[in-house]
């Protein structure tokens, strides 16, 4: 929609600002405010403190943050490898098997994550594969949940690379591995980074499935936040939330700064 009149344009911006303000900014502001609140009885907090951050940086929260980051990085990396491999392998297959695998990949992100957690719990709590109560099941849960995004992003990227680059590479004498390593993957780099970033962000915020499967020693931040707020410590929960968001943001910014030579003009 293109708005040409000046008043119309101002109106459009106002609506957009309102939407963004209400939907994105307001909850974020409230959480940030809450994280530094000592007491909040009226419309605005009456007394500010950094105590919640002090709490957050001591005790178990550092371990939670570490659990979240490790889980996020590991699950996203595995999902990226797996998703890229699947997308590359399925690129030249017939439409039917590809459709089927598309669906397999996308189902976990379409059902409630609690159900995914439950499914894994049931599947892996008896032999032959006993993962119940282990770290591995957390990674598996996150891996399953973010796989769709890795696979989807990489396939979209592959579809946009004209086959000519790879064909020329091959005619110049590049065998399949060499070609993959020196042509296909570098050209895919922007999509790989996008896939990893999205997976990591999702994993950092994952609660539903993690709550079902996490072992005692591996509490991720979202699970921790859920537990703390459930016990009524809303302001401590807010401080942890801010911590989670800042960490995720820092990793995403770092990822976005990886130089991409393949960037087109």
């Amino acid at each position: 929609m293109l708005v040409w009149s000046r008043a119309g344009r101002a109106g459009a911006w106002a609506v957009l600002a309102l939407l963004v303000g209400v939907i994105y900014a307001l909850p974020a502001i409230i959480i940030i405010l809450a994280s530094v609140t000592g007491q909040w009885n009226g419309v605005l907090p009456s007394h500010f403190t950094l105590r919640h951050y002090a709490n957050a940086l001591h005790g178990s929260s550092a371990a939670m943050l570490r659990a979240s980051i490790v889980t996020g990085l590991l699950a996203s990396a595995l999902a990226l490898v797996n998703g890229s491999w699947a997308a590359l392998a399925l690129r030249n297959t017939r439409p039917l098997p590809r459709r089927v695998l598309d669906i397999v990949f996308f189902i976990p992100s379409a059902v409630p994550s609690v159900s995914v957690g439950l499914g894994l719990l049931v599947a892996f709590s008896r032999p032959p594969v006993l993962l119940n109560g282990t770290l591995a099941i957390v990674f598996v849960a996150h891996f399953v949940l973010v796989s769709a995004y890795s696979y989807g992003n990489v396939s979209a990227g592959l579809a946009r690379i004209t086959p000519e680059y790879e064909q020329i590479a091959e005619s110049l004498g590049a065998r399949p591995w060499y070609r993959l390593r020196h042509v296909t993957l570098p050209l895919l780099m922007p999509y790989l980074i996008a896939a990893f970033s999205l997976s990591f962000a999702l994993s950092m915020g994952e609660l539903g499935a993690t709550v079902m499967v996490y072992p005692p020693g591996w509490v991720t931040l979202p699970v921790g936040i859920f537990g703390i707020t459930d016990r009524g410590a809303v302001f401590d929960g807010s401080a942890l939330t801010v911590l989670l968001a800042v960490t995720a943001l820092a990793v995403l910014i770092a990822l976005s700064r990886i130089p991409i030579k393949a960037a087109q003009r």
Partner: protein
Amino acid sequence: MAEAVLGHPAAAPGLSVPFIGPDAARRGIGYEGIAVAYKGTIVLADFTLAVRPGEIMALIGPSGSGKTTALRVTAGFVRPLRGRVHIGGRDVTDLPPYARSIGMVVQNYALFPHMPAYENVAFGLRARGAQEATIREQVAACLRMVGMESFAKRYPRELSGGQQQRVAIARALAIRPEVLLLDEPLSALDAQIRLTMLEELSRLHRSLPTLTVIYVTHDQTEALTLADRIGIMRDGRLVALGDCQGLYRRPPNRFAAEFLGRANLLPVTVEAEDAASGLARVRFGAASLMVRRNPEATAGQAALLCIRPHDLRLEPPGPSANSLAASVSEVRWKGDLHDIGFEIGGHRLRLTAAPLRTPPEAGALVNCYFAPEDATLIPEERRG
């Protein structure tokens, strides 16, 4: 390389007995009965062609006629349904592209965007595990050959179309291929650069006389300028093949006559032939004309008379010239030539001539002339 040298007489002047053998044709590029289908649609049918070693073969034809497909079969990007491909005497039909030793330049160049020009040119050598010193030497030589040595550090997006094209050619030549496939390499360039590049391609081939080149183009001027022989494609088939002059002067069929250079075509009946003089008498309406004889169009048969626009004259070119009365339908001045349209018994003819001082006016009745040797006969095609 030694094999290719043997096959090329110009490159082996000392050789008293040039290589002649039953598979001489296969030493360049040989296609035997190639058929290719995309999703069940045949796009190349019974494609048979022998490209001689060291030759530049132009493939021309309208869009969709299968030219690119023929190149893709050569490089191994598509597998033919039937038929065999030979390169340098080797059957490569079942070889993957990386084992074929082919240099290819595609229409949009497809330079690797994530590598500077130098690395693009070095790619093939690195992929083959060449020594760093060899790579440096070879890449420098190839970049110099195309005049791009000062652009080695630039990324493709920092190069103009013509510069990208040069790098693409250098990249293809760096692996010292036996065969260079060029798919409309000049189509993205403007007319001025196209002419320069055409000359440079000629020069390049003179410096690499053993290199067999297939040059795909829409543009008949490029084909006529650069190629030793021309193959004309239509609907996935090779419909004409010959050396440039022969194909231009004596097109074997109507399609070839119209596609390679514009031709004036008139329906005639062959009246008599004279094998001794090489001429035949044909009838066009009431006029009786002497033309070059075609053994495939014998007395009594219908045929097409083919005259190139620049062979039609307003003055008789000699005592034996044929003459046709025609009415001028349009006169166009195009700077370096006059382009005159005639109407003759319901048929349209074109004449081009160096700019005329007193061009005829539209509507005027004039005689136009042509020499018997400038007119050829195309046998009437059998209708299927």
